[in-house]
């Protein structure tokens, strides 16, 4: 274990209440050119963004908000208008973008492709890609959402647009990537393949970094696991106690491995459905069928989730299926799931929340463990989308595979060591899952 006793307990102390952190962030804003807020999964990042937006807009100075995808932008617009209906919001978009109906219903929102078309709103919001095309204007304030998923070259294109900025994001999720080899720049403080926050902090090491200490999404069964595996030095706790989240399956099971896995997940929040060991192609038919069957049985058995938000049935739109590769996603979609169930790659599940997730383990059936599959962020995203339970489908033998493939990436000079190590995080999650293992029949 690399956990360093000197860094203190990963459990944040009582002095770090979420309210206090938000107050500290807002107080720091006028004092610094940039403020960074790290937010573990489901820790109220969007709430913070909305509050900070209202806080800055209240000063009367215009504000720009940067998010990474159109869905994230739309989500933020809806949340801001919901909480602060008096604010006017301009939503910048590319020409091909069609605003969803939920956006058009909002009174204070204007959609346009040019800043001039928006009138003079309190807040202008767009994706980083869209902002890169905007010039000739400087905003006193900016909020950059999902800043850890933003590549620093994108920040370079838009940093001239604002004086000061609040950067919010989750450091444990997937790093930005490129289709070309970026070794040439590794070690440079402005490496374009690093995240916007890493580059920002390397050039401005004095900027304050705050951490949101409580995950409201992850249940008490998941927060310690995810915190230990992926946030070893900056842990967080769950906002709900051990008995506040419950999941029950209404109808009885048939005793099949799939049903037993679902029962284990309902009881403990985790389950590992382990298929017989085999090296397979990426779109492992057996694993794909297992994933589809789990989703189907979960719906058939009528799960009901009870939480601080009350009791509600786990409907198809509250279920997500996650995988590492796009072809796996396509194969799972083609396996006949109801269209309301979200099936997507880790990259695209980032920032989303569901009651139950079913995950095809990135290392299932593989012969090797590449840097792509070992990236801690991939597993972290997949293992931290759920409010109630997470069921992982994997072939046996991943522990042995990991042992045979220790991380062997060359060490580059001047590159800050990244924690947690993906290999170790994978082992930690696997070890936890092994306590919730259900073996599928040998076939």
């Amino acid at each position, binding site marked *: 274990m690399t956990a360093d006793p000197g860094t203190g307990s990963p459990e944040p102390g009582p002095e770090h209440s979420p309210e206090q952190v938000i107050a500290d962030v807002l107080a720091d804003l006028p004092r610094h*050119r*940039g403020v960074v807020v790290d937010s573990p999964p489901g820790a109220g990042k969007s709430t913070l963004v909305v509050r900070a937006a209202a806080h800055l807009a209240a000063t009367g100075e215009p504000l720009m908000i940067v998010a990474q995808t159109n869905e994230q932008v739309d989500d933020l617009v809806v949340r801001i208008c919901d909480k602060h209906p008096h604010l006017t919001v301009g939503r910048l978009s590319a020409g091909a973008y069609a605003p969803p109906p939920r956006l058009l219903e909002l009174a204070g929102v204007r959609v346009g492709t040019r800043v001039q078309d928006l009138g003079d709103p309190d807040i202008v919001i767009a994706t980083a*890609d869209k902002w*890169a*095309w905007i*010039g000739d204007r400087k905003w006193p304030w900016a909020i950059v959402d999902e800043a850890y998923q933003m590549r*620093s*070259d994108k*920040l*370079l*294109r838009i*940093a*001239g647009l604002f004086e000061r900025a609040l950067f919010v994001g989750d450091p444990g999720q997937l790093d930005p990537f*490129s*289709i*070309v*080899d*970026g070794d*040439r*720049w590794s070690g*440079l*403080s*402005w*490496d*374009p*393949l690093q995240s*916007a926050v890493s*580059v*920002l902090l390397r*050039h*401005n090491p004095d900027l304050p970094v705050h951490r949101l200490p409580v995950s409201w999404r992850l249940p008490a069964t998941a927060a310690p696991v995810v915190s230990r595996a992926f946030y070893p030095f900056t842990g967080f706790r769950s906002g709900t106690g051990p008995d506040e989240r419950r999941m029950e399956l209404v109808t009885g099971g048939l005793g099949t491995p799939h049903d037993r896995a679902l029962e284990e997940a309902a009881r403990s929040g985790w389950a590992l459905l382990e298929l017989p060991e085999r090296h397979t*192609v*990426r779109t492992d038919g057996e694993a794909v069928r297992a994933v589809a069957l789990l989703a189907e049985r979960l719906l058939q058995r009528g799960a009901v989730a009870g939480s601080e938000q009350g009791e509600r049935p786990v409907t198809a739109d509250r279920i997500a299926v996650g995988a590492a590769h*796009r*072809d796996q996603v*396509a*194969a799972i*979609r*083609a396996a006949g799931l109801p269209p309301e169930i979200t099936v997507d790659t880790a990259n695209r599940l980032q920032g989303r929340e569901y009651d139950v997730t079913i995950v095809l383990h990135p290392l299932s059936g593989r012969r090797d463990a590449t840097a792509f599959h070992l990236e801690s962020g991939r597993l972290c995203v997949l293992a931290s989308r759920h409010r109630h339970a997470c069921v992982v489908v994997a072939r046996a033998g991943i522990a042995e595979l990991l042992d045979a493939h220790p991380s062997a990436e060359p060490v580059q000079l001047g590159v800050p060591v990244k924690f947690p190590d993906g290999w170790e995080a994978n082992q930690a999650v696997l070890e936890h899952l092994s306590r919730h293992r259900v073996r599928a029949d040998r076939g």
Partner: protein
Amino acid sequence: MSLLTSLARLRALDEGIAQPVATVRHCHLSARPMVFVPLRLSGEAAAPLAAMLGDDRDRPRLLVVPQPRNRDLRFAWAAELAGVLLPYVESFTADTETVERRGGDPYERALDAPQLVVPNTGGVAFTRLLGRSTRFRRADGPYPVPESVPLLGRWLTYFAERAAYPGSSLTLAATEELGRHWASGQSGLEDGNLASLVAWITEGPREEAEDPLVWPPAGPATDPGFDAEVLAPAIDSGSAERVTEALRTQLAPTWRLMWQALDLLAGLEPGASVAQRWEQDRASFSAMAESVAEGGPPQPRRDGAVAAAARLARMERAQAAYEVQRAYDDPLVMAEYRLTGEAFAGEVVETVPDNAEGEGRSRKLRPLVVIKTDDPVLLPPGTALGTPERRAQGGELVEAHEGLVTVKITKGMGRGKTAAPGTVPDVGERVCYTSLTGDFQGSPGLPDAEATPWTHGGPPQQYVPDDEDAQEEWS
């Protein structure tokens, strides 16, 4: 490794001979390539030991550093290398064509460009290091070097940078190019051995390919046995001739392999997009030659923040375009995408060439094509499609159901009431559609280097050549 490549490798192992993974050649081959086989002193990062090079297979030039630990001799070697390489490069600058640009001034583009061919990726890396260690030297000040050396450094740096540029053929690594066209039955690491890879392609695996006495390593590292038993005594003897002859035995076999590798590649027809990419190479070469002629500074040691972002954007665009072009040029590459559900091929069973959407003035011609395919189509409706058979055409997937795919043609079918003849495939024609398309958005602008924002460290310092440059270690 893709499924198809894995299969090809298994089949290669089974049949004892490499299997093609491409039906056309995806790199340009120069009529007059400069084959360059460099060797490095073992234990040193960038100390040259020897190089065999030339553009005539019957007359290789052998350049040797008789005592590789002697700085002066190394620079003398670099000057000799410049004496071969620079005239070769400059021979391409004279003949140019004028190219008109939309929204820009016309520029001069070389009709042909140099091509550096090295044995492997190690050769590229060594070229880069040689360039790095020579381009900041000066002919005056402390530790002066011959005048041609810094210029050589700039060209070597340029060639090494182009090797990393997706789709460029200005610098080829023989093992890489062969590996892009054939799958051997050995591991990727073993494919880095030129002798072994050529053997797999031509007559099947031979054990002697790994015997350094028969096939010495293709560099830049030398065989340790040779180092200890032959090279060290030769250097100690102080006889330049003895060192030269010893190194000739190490380089001559690789020299023959290099030309054999080029012959193998020349046996393939060039892909349809190769000429287009070579045109970009020629333009790049002309820009570099112009920068040299105008006395511009050497390439910086590191990219600044803005330069790095600009280069990354160019390379990502080139990579994406290269992948699309390869698939469009080569059905075997396209097959990879058919396997992953990103492309499908089949026979046209029905067409509606005059299908239209909208009424009156907003009426838009949208011919429909129904294709029967055995491929697994995993594309959702609404996906934009392109087709290698009609490259100017754009389409959209309407629906895919039980092996029948309906495609709506949205671009490249003429403006008439019905589709122009030939633009809609006929019933019975075999076609392929894919979600890979060459439509890339331009990338947004970057700030000027002087306007680098505070998030990226602010404006960089200007490079001013000084005597410090000469103090750098050579190796």
